[in-house]
């Protein structure tokens, strides 16, 4: 009895007199037990028998229609000889007695076959008329659902209470809870269309798009990193914003499809279409040493076939990479023909400069008009400046050059060239780190590890005429997660200040005019110029490969003359937004060389060699080398050098701010072969052209050289039976917890016969081509084809959606018998609603919203909410530590969280977020103790509890009970029951007593997070209320959509 229930109702109809229905009852049995050897896969087919085609099955007499007793299939099911028995014992598959009976009945009734439901064209079914409905029929959804219920003899549930209903609607459409005011305004609005108006308001908000985007981002496996090995950063977030924008603008799904798959090929396509084409670049990529181009091109291509076929068509075409599909009509050739559509994408298998330079194939800069104009101005100014400088011939500088040569030669002879190590008298940290000076002058930072710091180094250089300071940083073995910096990937040096003076005299500021890094220290986002640009937030960092040592030469405007007593003070500032991006280990050096470089001798070896050659024997090239190098210290060119440093530095900083995104660039297509057993080294397979699976070729243009645009057109053509069904089925899952066909990733033969096939088809038809607006719903706007908001609106305005979820299903009927929960545990009849746990992102967003901490801003680069230290320690290439965002970015909606594929943010991962390594269309929902630890102890949630408590105290009135009621209602949209209130009151009393006795502990407890505390906090009061707020945020009800 129970087992039948678990199997789900479609299979639990044994004893129903009607003949078995092929698609509902028979195909699942044959597919699961027989098709692997007697199905579409030609290579695995045994005895040339296939049971997926009636004519073959009949011809081979496996099935003799009308005569189960003569049918070999039936005989084999009960054969006593293990060699005869089917399925064979080694398959570990076995039919139940009920299944065997169904097969016999079906053959007896003539063994009629049907095309697989998902492969037959979508036809709009007639909406049934339900006589004597006990619940409202608000739209065709209710008609289909209640028609089935009336036949099952089950009554639909009543509408949920208005507070639960509005909380459900807000959580489903926005992923955010309603405010008490929003609850009140709805509960108090008795107009007939109050609910529909609220639905329309919610659909119009960008919050709807932000919620909807997450499902799609899982399907297309959008992330911010490469996902293989070093899991380096990528810039793809403009694509994520495109998705949000597309849902917000209600872009027709067919257009949405074309833009992503073939945005670069759309005639007249603009920036938006190109950004959308980043879809083709969302696959994992590698820069691991030793990876072979060809092998990884094969991996990426297969990944694309899996993603496109599953995300759009709910098909496991990806299973045909190595062999023909075992259950569905997809051949291995179909797999590679699909792959061939994408063979024109410019890409590499192995990206040689991925790690070292962040180069991952075609990308597009996305400057704002202002940025573009400013960049042009910089380029023009720089060109003008360089032309002016070039106009000053070196010959006119000859006198100065001769003097420079003689000074440098003298310095060289006196062993005064090169870089002189500085031995500090003192090295101190402004914010508590310990700076240790080694005998040779090397300084290591240790101890406390503040987010920002300034190192001050004081030394006496001895007599000299110094022209430049060099900073040399080195690796620090003791930092397990990082080497050159104490946190993040690199240090960010935001400023260097140098003061010089005699021991007695006043210190004077030394002006630095040029900052010259070694090659790996050059980047637009973190240029060395930022060290001297006076902006405390900009800085110099190693953007990509930062292993090993790095050097920065800081040239002075004028030489600094010191005597034996003179002291020089150097301050290294780390004031960037990145946390702990402070230098781990460094030394300072000075030089007297004019035009010094970071070379060991402070001059490039060939310059030094030319200098050392006696003037009369210098070759012409040597003379030219000297003349060329002299342009660096030449006083006549000083103005140009300083100006060029400024212009190119500012240009770099601006350019570093310009967003960029990987895009699709079409090139001549690579040759695609069928790979035997998926082996990329096998070159014997036939060459294939782009083509849709043969089973569906009728709906595809009969041209040669099909493109991605043709593929997209086919996917969203009215003749494609899969796309619309698959999409509406997934929408249904969002609002009921289960799809109408439960297996969201596979609507093929191994998928599930839908619980309400006509309803699914009606929704699919309505999605592709909406019918006229119902006269009963004057508020509805006219929908367009492929209108996502229209389908969502239709679903959430149905009575079926609005049904109660709170426990009536668990109540035993008055006359005894099964409860609805027992009868239909999975709610496949839809006689009620289901409570469901919030998705990972929403668990956090909900808490931040309740707490008043959520900071909403649509789009932008990914952000970094709090994450435990050391979570990224297993990463390398580069080694890195997490640097949490500052200010508002700590509290943004979770879809904007940086998505690190190999180590997804642990708060998200704990609640079953997708790693986005592969297409995922159905997140599992688990309940684990780690989730409890997150909600209890993760600083994200403790800080939210504290902020929530501040609001409770500020806005919840003056009385304790009133405050507790306010808080409870804020979280779950209903007032607490008296017994609930008592639990909260008792908890509060115990905590208040403890914190009053120990205000120090209260202070510690309140210190978590960076959200501001009230101006005059009462620590014990606030701490006690924080405990209560935390308990409320932890409630099952709080993280459950009703």
């Amino acid at each position, binding site marked *: 009895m*129970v087992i039948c229930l678990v*199997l*789900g109702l479609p299979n639990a109809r044994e004893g129903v007199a009607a003949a078995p229905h092929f698609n509902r009852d028979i195909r699942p049995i044959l597919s699961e037990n027989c098709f692997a050897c007697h199905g579409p896969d030609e290579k695995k087919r045994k005895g040339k028998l296939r049971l997926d085609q009636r004519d073959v099955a009949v011809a081979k007499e496996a099935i003799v229609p009308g005569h189960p007793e003569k049918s070999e299939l039936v005989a084999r099911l009960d054969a006593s000889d293990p060699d005869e028995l089917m399925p064979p014992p080694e398959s570990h598959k076995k039919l139940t007695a009920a299944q065997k009976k169904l097969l016999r009945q079906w053959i007896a009734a003539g063994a009629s076959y049907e095309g697989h439901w998902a492969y037959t064209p979508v036809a709009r079914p007639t909406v049934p008329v339900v006589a004597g409905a006990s619940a409202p029929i608000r739209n065709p959804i209710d008609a289909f659902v209640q028609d089935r219920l009336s036949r099952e003899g089950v009554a639909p549930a009543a509408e949920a209470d208005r507070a639960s209903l509005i909380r459900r609607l807000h959580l489903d459409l926005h992923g955010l809870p309603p405010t008490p005011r929003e609850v009140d305004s709805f509960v108090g609005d008795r107009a007939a269309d109050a609910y529909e108006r609220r639905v329309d308001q919610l659909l119009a908000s960008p919050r709807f798009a932000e919620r909807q985007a997450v499902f799609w981002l899982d399907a297309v496996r959008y992330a911010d990193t490469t996902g293989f*090995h070093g899991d380096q950063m990528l810039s793809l977030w403009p694509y994520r914003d495109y998705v949000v924008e597309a849902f917000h603008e209600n872009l027709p799904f067919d257009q949405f499809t074309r833009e992503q798959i073939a945005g670069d090929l759309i005639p007249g396509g603009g920036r938006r279409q190109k950004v959308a084409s980043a879809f083709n670049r969302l696959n994992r990529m*590698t820069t691991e*040493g030793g990876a*072979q181009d060809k092998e990884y091109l094969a991996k990426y291509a297969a990944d694309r076939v899996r993603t496109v076929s599953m995300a759009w068509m709910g098909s496991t075409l990806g299973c045909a990479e190595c062999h023909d599909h*075992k259950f569905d009509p997809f051949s291995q050739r179909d797999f590679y023909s699909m792959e061939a559509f994408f063979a024109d994408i410019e890409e590499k298998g192995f990206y040689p400069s991925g790690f070292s330079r962040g180069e991952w194939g075609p990308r597009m800069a996305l400057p704002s008009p202002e940025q573009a104009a400013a960049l042009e101005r910089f380029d023009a100014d720089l060109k003008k400046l360089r032309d002016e400088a070039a106009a000053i011939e070196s010959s006119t500088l000859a006198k100065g050059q001769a003097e420079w040569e003689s000074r440098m030669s003298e310095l060289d002879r006196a062993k005064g060239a090169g870089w002189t190590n500085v031995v500090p008298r003192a090295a101190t940290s402004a914010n508590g780190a310990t700076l240790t000076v080694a005998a040779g002058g090397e300084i290591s930072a240790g101890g406390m590890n503040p987010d920002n710091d300034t190192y001050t180094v004081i030394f006496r250089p001895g007599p000299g005429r110094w022209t430049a300071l060099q900073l040399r940083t080195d690796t620090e073995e003791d930092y397990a997660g990082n080497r050159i910096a104490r946190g993040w990937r690199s240090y960010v040096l935001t400023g260097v200040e140098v003061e010089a003076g005699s021991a007695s005299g006043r210190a004077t500021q030394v002006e630095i005019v040029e900052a010259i890094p070694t090659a790996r220290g050059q980047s637009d986002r973190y240029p060395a110029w930022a060290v001297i640009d006076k902006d405390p937030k900009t800085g110099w960092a190693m953007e990509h490969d930062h292993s090993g040592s790095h050097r920065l030469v800081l040239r002075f405007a004028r030489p600094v003359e010191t005597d034996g007593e003179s002291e020089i003070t150097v301050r290294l500032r780390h004031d960037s937004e990145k946390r702990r991006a402070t230098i781990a280990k460094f030394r300072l050096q000075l030089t007297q060389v004019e035009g010094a470089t970071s070379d060991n001798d402070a001059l490039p070896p060939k310059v030094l060699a030319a200098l050392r050659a006696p003037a009369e024997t210098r070759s012409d090239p040597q003379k030219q080398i000297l003349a060329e190098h002299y342009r660096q210290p030449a006083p006549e060119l000083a103005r140009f050098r300083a100006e060029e440093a400024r212009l190119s530095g500012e240009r770099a900083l601006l350019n570093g701010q310009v967003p960029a995104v990987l895009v699709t660039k079409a090139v001549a297509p690579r040759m695609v072969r069928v790979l035997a057993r998926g082996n990329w*080294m096998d070159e014997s397979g036939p060459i294939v052209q782009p083509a849709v699976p043969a089973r569906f070729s009728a709906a595809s243009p009969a041209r040669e050289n099909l493109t991605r645009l043709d593929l997209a057109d086919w996917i969203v053509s009215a003749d494609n039976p899969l796309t619309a069904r698959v999409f509406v089925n997934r929408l249904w899952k969002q609002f009921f*917890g*289960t799809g109408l066909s439960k*297996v*969201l990733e596979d609507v*093929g033969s*191994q998928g599930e016969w839908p619980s309400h096939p006509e309803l699914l088809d009606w929704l699919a038809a309505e999605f592709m081509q909406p019918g006229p607006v119902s006269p009963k719903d004057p508020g509805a706007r006219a929908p367009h084809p492929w209108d996502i908001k229209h389908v969502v609106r239709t679903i959430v305005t149905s009575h079926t959606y609005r049904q109660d979820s709170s*426990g009536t299903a*668990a*109540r035993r009927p008055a006359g005894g018998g099964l409860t609805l*929960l027992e009868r239909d545990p*999975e709610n496949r009849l839809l006689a009620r609603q*289901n*409570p*469901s*746990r919030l998705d990972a992102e929403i668990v956090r967003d909900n808490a931040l919203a309740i707490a008043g901490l959520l900071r909403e801003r649509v789009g932008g680069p990914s952000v970094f909410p709090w994450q*435990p230290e050391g979570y990224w*320690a*297993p990463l*390398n290439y580069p080694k890195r530590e997490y640097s949490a965002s500052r200010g508002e970015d700590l509290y943004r909606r979770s879809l904007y969280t940086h998505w690190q594929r*190999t180590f997804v943010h642990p708060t998200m991962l*704990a609640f*079953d977020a997708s*790693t986005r*390594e*592969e297409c995922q269309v159905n997140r*599992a*929902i*688990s*309940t*684990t*103790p780690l989730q*409890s*630890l997150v909600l*209890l*102890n993760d*600083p994200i949630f403790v800080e939210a509890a504290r902020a929530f408590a501040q609001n409770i105290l500020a806005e919840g009135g003056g009385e304790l009970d009133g405050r507790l009621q306010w808080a409870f209602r804020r979280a779950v949209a209903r007032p607490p*029951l008296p017994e*609930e209130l008592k*639990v909260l009151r008792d908890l509060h009393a115990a*905590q208040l007593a*403890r914190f009053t006795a120990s205000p120090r502990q*209260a*202070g*510690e407890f309140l*210190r*978590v997070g960076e959200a501001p505390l009230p101006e005059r906090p009462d620590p014990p009061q606030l701490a006690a209320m924080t405990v209560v707020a*935390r*308990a409320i945020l932890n409630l*099952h*009800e709080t993280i*459950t959509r009703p």
Partner: protein
Amino acid sequence: MKTKFSAAPPDAVALGVHRRTFLGRTIAGVGSLALHSLMHPRLWAGASQPAPGWPGVVNPRHVASRCKRVIFLYQAGGPSHLETFDPKPRLGEMHGKPMPESFTKGQQIAQLQGKALKCFGPQFSFRRFGKAGIEITDRFPLIGGVADDLCVIRSMFTEQINHDPAHTFMNTGAIVAGRPSMGSWLLYGLGTETQDLPGFVVLVSQGKGGQMQPIAARQWSAGFLPGRFQGVKLNSTGDPVLHLRTPEGLGTAGQEESIAAISALNRIRHDRVGDPEILTRIAQYEMAFRMQASVPELVDMRNEPQSVLDSYGARPGDGSFASNCLLARRLAERGVRFIQLYHRDWDHHQAVKSNIDLKAAEVDRPTAALIHDLKQRGMLDDTLVVWGGEFGRTPMSQDGDGRDHHIKGFSIVMAGGGIRGGMAYGATDELGYAAVENPVSVHDFHATMLHVLGVDHERLSVKFQGLDAKLTGVEGAKVIKGILA
């Protein structure tokens, strides 16, 4: 620690909860799990029978077995079999000579693409150890000391030549991401024996120098199985389990009272709406609270005698491979099903000799100590210990002193848990290039591991994307009968 939950009967609650949870779960969650996998008879064995935690779907086991758990000492980067467990004197004789093309033609190559392939002789001598006289590098004298407990498989081969996919394949039996790791499969199949700790624990060792291979959480992911089956990483710095620590200033009493209040409120809600998920949630809070006591107790090694610490070379708190080996034993004692311990520094493209010297110093003592310690405690019979990485190294040199990635032949060592000790199994060719005698695929290895734990690898499957997905893949795998005790 005494808590107010210890008075309640957690076992009964837990089982009852889990049974109902699974029913409830099918509504919203498991999704990809086939119904038949949810219908194991054990799940229906009355809620009144107390059983700890998740009972597992293979219950009773498919095959009689004494082995209960696995400790996998995972050597990431790909240790050279030629300097550890696979003696190749002929390769020494060929040192410096071109690698015969008959070996390498048409085979995959990683960083040696386009380079001249020259033989590179073994850098260490081998000694015969134990009664069986198994040949092992002289850099592993202590591992040699337990040779009679070891089964050295010298004929492993794999399919993926780069670290990332090779790790994925070794851990999940699949190249495509998103499949359950072997620990998750075992936890799903066999259930857990501990109520206070996760059933699948991962330790990542800290070490000095070297390249420190990046690894991915995918390697202990539950894939398409529910999140409860994923590996939990124990950290050697910060909180041992993420967010294990009660917030500063709240104190144990504040935490306990909070959880009691949360559970009380959840119960009130449950009484009203009857949603079985709420009971699951309550049980998870109770387990979280128990973990807050049991995990610190687990990682606190103060009660380990100095002699034990010394035998492993462990300095508690340093996060070293040695300390983690000792921690692995403590986890095994507490009923954790699958313990995976990463050493991450075996990618010796350069200076294979000096590097292996260093790494041998890090792993020889603790590996031997763990096997010895388990044996002394009578736990080696029911604990399978595995030592090995994702692939081996080329017999050819890289840049004159290193070795490149190699997939055609490498070694893995197994001990205890139903595996015959004191034997070597299979062989590579005379140059250590390809497994030629009794080749063992990664799927065969997995099948054998499952077998000693009493699981028929063909029958531990879950429906995913229409297929009966298994750890051992679709192409078939065989249990290595020749190494079973």
